[in-house]
C-alpha cells in the first residue's frame, strides 16, 4: 500500500517536472525577453523570496488575506446559522443579499479606498466581502438541510436551543460549511492579489506589478510563482484540516472526497432533486419538503 502511494506521488510529480523542463529547454532556445529560462527565474525567486521579502511583502499579504478570510468565515457562519434557522428573515433579506453577492468585489476597490484609505483595512474589507458569500450561502443550505429526525431527537431529549444550535445544527451543517470555506479560500487569495494592485505600498501582488512595470521580468515571474505556491499550500492545508475535522462525515457517507459546492439562492421555492445519492443530498431534500406541514413531513393521514 505504501508502495502504491509512493507510486501515485511519483506519477503526480511527472507532469509538473516535464512542464518545467520543457519550459526551460524552450526558453533557453528562444531567448525571449519576456520568458527567461528557469534558472534565471529561480535565482530571482531565491533572491527575493528566500527570505528577504518575506517579512516586508509576503507576510503583510498573508496577514491581510487571513484576516479577511477569518472575518468572512466567522461572519458567514454566524449569519448563515441565523438565516438558515429563520426562514422569514432569509426571505426578507434575500434581495439585498443577492444584490450584494452579485457585486464583483474588485468593483468596490474605489469605494473602499475612499472609505478606509490606502491602508490594510480597505484590503481586508475587500477580501472579507468577497469570501463571505460562499461561506454564508453554504451555511444557510447546510442549516436548512439538517435532518428533521436529528432535530426531533434533540427536542425530545429537551436539549436547550443554544446547545441544539451549537451541537446539532452546526456539526450537521459543517460539511457544507467546509465546502463553502474552501471556495472562499481561493477567492480570498485572488482578492489578496487584486487588492494590492491599486493603492498598495507592499505585498506580493504589489511586488509583481512593480516588477512588471519596471520590466524586471524574472522578478515578475518569481512573484507569480510564489503566488501559485501560496495558493497550492493553503489548499493542501485546508484539505488536511477538513479531513481531520470531517472524518466522521467521510466515514459515515463512505466517501473520501470533499463535498461538492453548490451555490444556491437563499430562497428556494421547491426542493431540488438530489444529484448524487449522498447523505447530504438526501437530507437536503427531506428537509426542504418540510414547511408544507408543521412537523416537517407529509402526515400519513393526508394521503389515503
Amino acid at each position: 500500500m505504501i508502495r502504491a502511494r509512493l507510486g501515485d506521488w511519483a506519477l503526480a510529480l511527472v507532469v509538473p517536472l516535464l512542464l518545467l523542463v520543457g519550459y526551460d529547454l524552450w526558453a533557453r532556445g528562444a531567448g525571449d525577453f519576456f520568458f527567461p529560462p528557469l534558472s534565471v527565474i529561480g535565482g530571482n525567486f531565491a533572491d527575493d523570496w528566500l527570505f528577504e521579502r518575506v517579512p516586508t511583502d509576503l507576510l503583510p499579504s498573508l496577514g491581510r488575506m487571513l484576516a479577511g478570510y477569518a472575518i468572512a468565515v466567522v461572519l458567514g457562519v454566524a449569519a448563515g446559522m441565523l438565516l438558515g434557522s429563520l426562514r422569514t428573515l432569509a426571505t426578507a433579506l434575500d434581495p439585498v443579499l443577492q444584490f450584494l453577492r452579485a457585486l464583483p468585489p474588485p468593483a468596490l476597490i474605489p469605494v473602499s479606498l475612499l472609505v478606509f484609505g490606502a491602508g490594510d483595512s480597505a484590503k481586508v474589507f475587500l477580501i472579507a466581502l468577497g469570501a463571505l458569500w460562499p461561506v454564508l450561502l453554504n451555511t444557510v443550505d447546510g442549516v436548512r438541510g439538517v435532518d428533521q429526525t436529528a432535530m426531533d431527537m434533540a427536542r425530545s431529549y429537551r436539549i436547550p436551543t443554544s446547545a441544539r444550535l451549537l451541537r446539532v445544527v452546526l456539526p450537521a451543517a459543517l460539511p457544507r460549511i467546509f465546502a463553502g470555506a474552501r471556495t472562499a479560500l481561493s477567492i480570498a487569495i485572488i482578492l489578496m492579489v487584486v487588492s494590492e494592485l491599486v493603492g498598495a505600498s507592499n505585498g506580493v501582488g504589489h511586488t509583481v506589478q512593480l516588477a512588471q512595470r519596471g520590466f524586471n521580468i524574472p522578478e515578475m515571474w518569481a512573484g507569480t510563482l510564489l503566488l501559485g505556491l501560496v495558493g497550492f499550500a493553503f489548499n493542501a492545508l485546508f484539505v488536511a484540516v477538513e479531513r481531520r475535522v470531517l472524518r466522521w462525515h467521510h466515514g459515515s457517507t463512505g466517501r473520501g472526497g470533499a463535498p461538492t459546492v453548490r451555490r444556491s439562492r437563499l430562497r428556494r421555492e421547491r426542493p431540488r432533486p438530489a444529484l448524487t445519492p449522498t447523505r447530504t443530498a438526501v437530507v437536503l431534500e427531506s428537509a426542504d419538503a418540510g414547511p408544507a406541514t408543521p412537523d416537517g413531513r407529509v402526515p400519513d393521514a393526508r394521503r389515503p
Partner: protein
Amino acid sequence: MLVVRDLSKTYALGGEPAMAGLDFTVGEREFVCIVGSSGCGKTTMLRCLSGLIPASEGSIELEGRAVQGPPEDMAYVFQDYSRSLLPWLTVAGNVSFPLKYKGLSKAEAAAATEQALAAVGLADRGNSYPWQLSGGMQQRVAIARALAYQPRILLMDEPFASVDAQTRAELEDLLLDIWRRFDITILFVTHDIDEAVYLSQRVLVLHKPAHVFESIEVDLPAERDQMETKKLPRFGELRTRVLASLRAPDTASA
C-alpha cells in the same frame, strides 16, 4: 401512568383530521403495542404524545402532569436510527449527549452511559462511531441512549422496522429483557402484528383517523420465547384477532 383523553389533531385549518378522539391509558410498567395500517396517523399520534407537536384538542397526562412540551420522564426511540444518532459523536458520546442537559454531572453521565451500553450488550463499543456499526447495533445505541436518560416511559416508533428478521428477533428479546429489568413503561408502535402480540401485554388497534378501535389483552405467559411463544395456539388466535380488528369496518367512531 400515561392518560390520553380525546386527543385530536388537524394540520390544516378545516382539513381532514390526522387524529380524532384518541383515548387510552397506559398503566405503570405496562408494555403496550399500538398497531395500525400505514397512514392511519400513528406518527402524528407519537409526535403529539412526545410533546413534539401540540394536539388540536384533548389532553395528555404523564404521571399526573399535563404534557405540553417533551416531558422529562419520557424517551423517544425513532424508527430511523441512522438519522437519530449523531454521526460526529461516538457511541458513548451519543448516549451521554442528552445527560448533561438533564443536569447530570460528568461522572454520573459516564456511569449511566456505561450501564446503558452494557444493558444493550455494547459495553465495548463506546468509542466506535455509529456508522461503524451494523443497523441492529445502531438501534441498540439508540435504545441505550433512551435508557441512560432514565425515563419512566419509553415511546418507540417502529424501532425494528428496518433491520433484518434475525436481528429483529434479537432486539425484541433484548427489549423484553430491558423492560423486565428496568422500571419502565413501554409504548411500542409497530405495523407488524406478530411483533405486537409477541412483545406486549396489550395491543391497541388504531383506525384512521387515529383513534383506538379496540384494546386487546394479550393473555400469553409472561415469559416469552421466539420459538415457543409463537407456537402456542393462543398466539395464533390473538394474531387473528388483531388482524380482524385491523380490517374491521369502523363503527366505533360513529
